[in-house]
């Protein structure tokens, strides 16, 4: 017995920590360099659009951001893990586009502090972006075991529900929605973090019960269902989603939770019947909501025909569509769009709910499709990590994390484009907002950690005697 083997962790998993040695990440370096070039060109274009002169728009801000990305890359090189090399550049480019957009919008939309030291929209977003990069990198390097997630899934679920309840009770009402929880000077939207916790819980629950959910049947008419007691979480989820809509008036979060839940359940069990039931429940719930609650019905009416009241209820979405139309194919160019009328931006809440419309105007359809493509790469990467994960828990977790990003991006983009009713979720990595950026940073960090393909070459067995015995046997 060597000392190393005695330190075997209590969770019965072997140490996978090998000796740390730097490992170059050339793909990541090349992609990051390309992203940096693109962002510098974008910044020049923005300065030209805003002021008509050459140079970088807010050179210091861009420098800090690119520096942070570079440091994140270096840190991962030093850590030497064989993690994914595509996610960081892609998300970094999205964050950079977000930075350009926030620098371009009127800085007074958000201010932190007072007087000369006050930070405007672009600066505040920069702070959150850099914090997000730090969080992502830290998680990507430090998280080597998923036991703490796997083990305590019910604890996580409890934490999530506690967060939700706290928001219900102590949350501050903003624009009729109770989403923000304040703790002294720090405010945040727990629902952003809740979605990550939810996926962790689901991954734990589904991976543990996967055999059962697949194997056993309860017949209900033509449907073959898993044993009914195991459907309880689904019903619970449904109830939570309804609760969110009713109490928090947050249709977007409810839609996101439900869609991720359904997709994940399908991914884990391969049972279409569950998806069918989920959709039926969803439609029934929606119909019920639309009948019971005016704000839900209003949202749906606005969605069906925003042009019926273009200056009132339908204003935001109509203006969003106008922005896409003004952009056309190639866009007006960064800094050239978004005509101000009476000193106001054409779309209210543009920095949180409509960044895609703003980008649609200034970068055009071509730019929007590129941005959708970036999201698609993130999703594809996440699902790929899931598909090649070592076990069910990791597979479901990675799939769920990818789904959070993908479904959320879809919901808000669809809202901007009148494909779905508009709901107030953020565009991951692009919308302004600390909670959203940090929560998505956690998602990316976890995906990176999960993508670790182990250390190569295989570590020597910690027991020297093992080698010796093997050699002896081989020579014998």
């Amino acid at each position, binding site marked *: *017995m*060597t000392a*190393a*083997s*005695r330190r*075997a962790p209590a969770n*019965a*998993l*072997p140490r*996978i920590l090998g000796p740390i040695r730097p490992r170059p990440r050339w*793909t990541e370096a*090349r*992609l990051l360099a*390309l*992203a940096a*070039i*693109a962002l510098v*060109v*974008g910044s020049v*274009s923005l300065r*030209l*659009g805003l002021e008509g002169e050459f140079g970088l728009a807010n050179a210091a801000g861009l420098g800090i951001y690119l520096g942070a990305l570079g440091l994140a890359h270096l840190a991962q090189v030093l850590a030497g893990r064989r993690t994914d*090399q*595509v996610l960081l*550049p*892609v998300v970094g*480019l999205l964050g950079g586009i977000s930075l350009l957009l926030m620098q371009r919008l009127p800085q007074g939309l958000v201010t932190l502090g007072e007087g000369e030291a006050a930070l405007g929209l672009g600066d505040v977003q920069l702070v959150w972006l850099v914090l997000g990069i730090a969080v992502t990198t830290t998680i990507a390097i430090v998280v080597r075991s998923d036991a703490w997630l796997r083990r305590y899934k019910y604890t996580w679920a409890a934490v999530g529900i506690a967060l939700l309840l706290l928001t219900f009770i102590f949350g501050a009402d903003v624009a009729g929605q109770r989403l923000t929880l304040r703790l002294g000077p720090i405010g945040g939207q727990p629902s952003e973090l809740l979605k990550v916790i939810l996926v962790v819980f689901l991954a734990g629950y589904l991976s543990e019960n996967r055999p059962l959910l697949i194997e056993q049947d309860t017949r209900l008419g033509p449907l073959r269902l898993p044993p009914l007691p195991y459907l309880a979480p689904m019903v619970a989820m449904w109830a939570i989603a309804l609760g969110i809509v009713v109490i928090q008036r947050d249709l977007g979060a409810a839609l996101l939770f439900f869609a991720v839940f359904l997709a994940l359940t399908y991914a884990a069990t391969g049972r279409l019947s569950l998806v069918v039931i989920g959709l039926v429940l969803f439609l029934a719930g929606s119909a019920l909501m639309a009948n019971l609650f005016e704000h839900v019905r209003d949202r749906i009416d606005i969605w069906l025909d925003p042009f019926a009241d273009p200056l009132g209820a339908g204003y935001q979405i109509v203006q969003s569509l106008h922005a896409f139309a003004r952009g056309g194919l*190639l*866009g007006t*160019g*960064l800094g050239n769009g978004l005509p101000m009328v009476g000193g106001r931006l054409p779309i209210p809440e543009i920095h949180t709910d409509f960044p895609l419309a703003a980008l649609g105007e200034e*970068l055009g359809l*071509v*730019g929007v499709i*590129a*941005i959708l*493509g*970036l999201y698609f*790469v993130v999703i*594809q*990467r996440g699902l*790929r990590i899931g598909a*090649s994960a*070592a*076990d069910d828990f990791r597979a479901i977790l990675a799939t769920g994390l990818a789904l959070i990003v993908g479904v959320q991006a879809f919901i808000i983009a669809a809202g901007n484009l009148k494909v779905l009713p508009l709901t107030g979720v953020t565009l991951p990595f692009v919308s302004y907002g600390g909670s959203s950026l940090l929560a998505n940073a956690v998602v990316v960090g976890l995906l990176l950690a999960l993508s670790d393909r*182990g*250390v*190569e*070459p*295989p*570590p020597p*067995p*910690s*027991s020297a*005697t*093992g*080698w010796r*015995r*093997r050699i002896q*046997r081989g020579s014998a």
Partner: protein
Amino acid sequence: MDPFLLVIWIIRLLFLALLYLFLARVVGSLLRDLRAAAREPGASPGRLVVVESPAGEPEAGRSFDLDAITTLGRDVNNAIVIDDPFASTEHAVLTFRGRSWYVEDLESTNGTFVNGRAVAGVSPLGFGDEVSIGQVRLRLERARST
């Protein structure tokens, strides 16, 4: 056309073009990755066949497709449950790292044996090797080609 205007044009188009160049490079590296994955052998790196099991749990002759980490022991939370009086709750773990299999005895009461020899700490395991836990004997084999 005003040359300054032309420069503005070019820079705007360049930004869009760079976005697509980036996407193209990303997709390129994803495809390379996929091709590499396609060359790897089947999903499971190996399987464990039950050679002898007096208690019938696991039943003899049964084969388990192995994940990268497979725990063995008497507790139901183990990936392979060994219902044997001489097995510990958390008895041993099989891990696949790089391209090799390792077995680690989790300080079980009665020890883990490879081809009849007691395992101390982590020990490499080859295909065809037999692992004994209590009275249960299991053999590591290559995964069936899918």
